[in-house]
């Protein structure tokens, strides 16, 4: 019997399961997330849109879960959280135990409960979908349990193996690195995380806006890692400030690279370097990391009135909603496919629409036009249509010859993806990278082409989600632990 089935046969769980008939459970409608009103939240930078479920709402939602004998939701989770166990703990009112269950598999439940694309992962596997009903709101419940624990002041610290005095270094402090660091610390390793920026959290801090993921949520999760013994060093770039050899000389036996996304991609079209045209990374970093929307902040930010964001991913939606909050009267998403193909989370698209964001689908920028001072004032859009199905399983957008549109803009934010950060591959000789600059790793162990180096997250994937990065971190921790033990 596996650990999931074992949990399921505990007497409290059997009793709880039998206390209500599945038919009754299935009659309960899915919980609705309480949220700030759109007209209010368009003018507030840092207040979170989703307010979280109340304990009563969470317990009712938890009742909907049938506690399946074969819980497919677990397979849908990249870090295989024991979903039924945490949900059933919520149902019986043991919220702290629910949080503990989450933390066995995920170092960042309060983060994942907010930013995971659940509709494509755990919730996509829910049995309810087979009966044409809405899936259990696993994401809402995850967030509820994690928030409850944080606010209770009774944060549980995961069990830790005795210290083995083996030092490992981590490059970057985003989700892949935090997840790796947590798992290694639990196994007894001495973990030091080196971060290039002045804040810990990587994309969770510089990328995702506070109205979706407040900074204090990230800070608390980082604090938990510190309690576990993980050390953090900011303003230190491995490969620049310290070389790999420096680290080896200091006794580090393994190195995990989670240095993340690097160069933002541009389209190389005319006018792309005009003033007012920038990458989503630049725009979001100014607002999120540098707090540029604060009147006291010394980092400047454009407050465009007619803002176009190019792209259809979560970053694009984050950027356009930020622009709206910074005073854009017209804030547009320009996407070359249709809404169905947009990679963004459904909830973000819904929130964006409520906030008055315009979605211009089947459009692709062709040229940006500037004034005499070199500032963008217009953009020329190519009208597109969907053509053949490509490798990604999506229909390739193709231009409709001769059909273009000219629209007025005063700010353009480009969010069409990123290439992996080049600093590490540039500075560590012998590391194999793909044509597109991704680190080559063994898919199971996440070991790179230099044996004491492991890697995960965007440096390996190009651009992916928080949870996939965390899954990489977990696998890399397992892989490095096994490799280090074999070395002894």
């Amino acid at each position, binding site marked *: 019997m596996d650990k999931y089935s074992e949990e399921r046969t505990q007497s409290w769980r059997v009793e709880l399961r039998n206390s209500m008939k599945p038919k009754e459970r299935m009659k309960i409608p899915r919980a609705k997330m309480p949220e700030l009103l759109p007209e209010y939240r368009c003018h507030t930078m840092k207040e979170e849109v989703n307010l979280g479920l109340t304990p009563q709402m969470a317990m009712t939602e938890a009742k909907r879960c049938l506690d399946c004998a074969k819980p497919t939701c677990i397979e849908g989770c990249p870090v295989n959280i024991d979903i039924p166990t945490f949900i059933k703990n919520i149902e019986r009112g043991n919220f702290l135990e629910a949080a503990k269950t989450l933390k066995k598999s995920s170092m960042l439940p309060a983060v994942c409960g907010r930013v995971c694309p659940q509709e494509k992962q755990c919730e996509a596997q829910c049995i309810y979908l087979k009966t044409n009903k809405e899936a259990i709101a696993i994401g809402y419940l995850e967030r509820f349990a994690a928030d409850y624990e944080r606010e209770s002041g009774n944060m549980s610290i995961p069990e830790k193996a005795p210290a083995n005095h083996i030092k490992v270094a981590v490059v970057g402090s985003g989700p892949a690195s935090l997840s790796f660091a947590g798992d290694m610390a639990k196994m007894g390793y001495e973990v030091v995380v080196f971060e290039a920026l002045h804040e810990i959290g990587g994309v969770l801090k510089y990328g995702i806006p506070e109205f979706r993921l407040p900074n204090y949520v990230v800070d608390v999760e980082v604090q938990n890692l510190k309690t576990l013994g993980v050390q953090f060093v900011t303003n230190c770039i491995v490969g620049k400030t310290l070389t790999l050899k420096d680290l080896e000389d200091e006794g580090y036996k393994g190195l995990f690279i989670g240095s993340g996304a690097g160069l933002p991609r541009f389209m190389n079209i005319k006018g792309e370097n005009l003033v007012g045209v920038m990458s989503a990374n630049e725009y979001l970093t100014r607002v999120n990391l540098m707090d540029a929307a604060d009147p006291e902040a*010394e980092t400047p930010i454009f407050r465009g009135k007619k803002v176009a964001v190019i792209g259809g991913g979560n970053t694009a939606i984050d950027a356009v909603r930020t622009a709206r909050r910074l005073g854009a009267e017209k804030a547009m998403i320009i996407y070359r496919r249709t809404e169905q193909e947009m990679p963004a989370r459904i909830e973000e698209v819904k929130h964006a629409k409520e906030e008055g964001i315009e979605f211009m689908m089947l459009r692709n920028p062709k040229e940006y036009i500037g004034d005499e001072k070199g500032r963008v004032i217009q953009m020329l859009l190519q009208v597109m249509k969907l053509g053949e199905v490509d490798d990604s399983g999506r229909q390739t957008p193709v231009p409709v010859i001769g059909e273009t549109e000219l629209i007025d803009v005063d700010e353009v934010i480009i969010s069409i993806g990123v290439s992996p950060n080049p600093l590490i591959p540039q500075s560590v000789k012998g590391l194999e990278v793909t044509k597109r600059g991704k680190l080559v790793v063994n898919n199971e162990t996440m070991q790179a082409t230099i044996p004491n180096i492991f890697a995960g997250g965007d440096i390996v994937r190009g651009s992916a989600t928080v949870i996939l990065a965390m899954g990489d971190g977990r696998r890399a921790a397992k892989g490095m632990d096994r490799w280090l033990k074999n070395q002894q």
Partner: protein
Amino acid sequence: MNKIVSKEYLSPNVVKFEVEAPLIAKARKAGHFVMVRVGEKGERIPLTIADANIEKGTITLIVQKVGFSTIKFCTLEVGDIITDLVGPLGNPTHVEKFGTVLCACGGVGTAPMLPIVESMKKAGNRVVTVLAARTKELIMLENEMRKFSDDIIIMTDDGSYGNKGLVTAGIEMVIKREKVDCCVTIGPAIMMKFVSELTKKYNIPTIASLNTIMIDGTGMCGSCRVTVGGKTRFVCVEGPEFDAHQVDFDEMLIRLNAYIDFEQEKLKKISL
């Protein structure tokens, strides 16, 4: 860490700082820069490393007051801690034995030129330095430059010191009297533009070290991008040095002024 151990005014607007940064001191090479931030509300700005002392574990930063954040930086005193300091960033200068190297610098570019002059000399080159400023009191680092230069030509706009004229006049003097194999130029973008146009005329390979707007300095944001040879390049991770003849200086000048209104507002609001 990051403690200021000495401060010296080189001119009313230029301050030399020695800062505790042992790891950066050890790792840096000529051409490298650091990102600094002063105060929790501070802006991240790039500053070129002018010198380093590995034994003392210090780096030298020479800061010219050109905008709000550099003015604020210059208010720091000995014993103060720089909130954030990270580096060394960028690629080091490509140093080899070219023959005769002409180093042309002015204003804000003088400090970052110093380690390049030193490295070029140590690599066995004949180094001719052209040092330019508006007026005599703005000429700085002359003695330090002399130490590593075979010849030095001083140019002032008003003729108050050295020769009267712009940096380009000094360069032309050198080109006309001897064969120059390579030119390195650092200074305001407009100066580098004219230097580049001049050396292009004489077919002298020229390197320009660009100082653009940056946030992270590690390749993440792209605010530093410039067009070089028709292609968009990132100054922070692909530069800061590029073939000057390929750089679109007009575009760079426009991009450098992107936030000029914001900058002026900030300067108005706060008295430092």
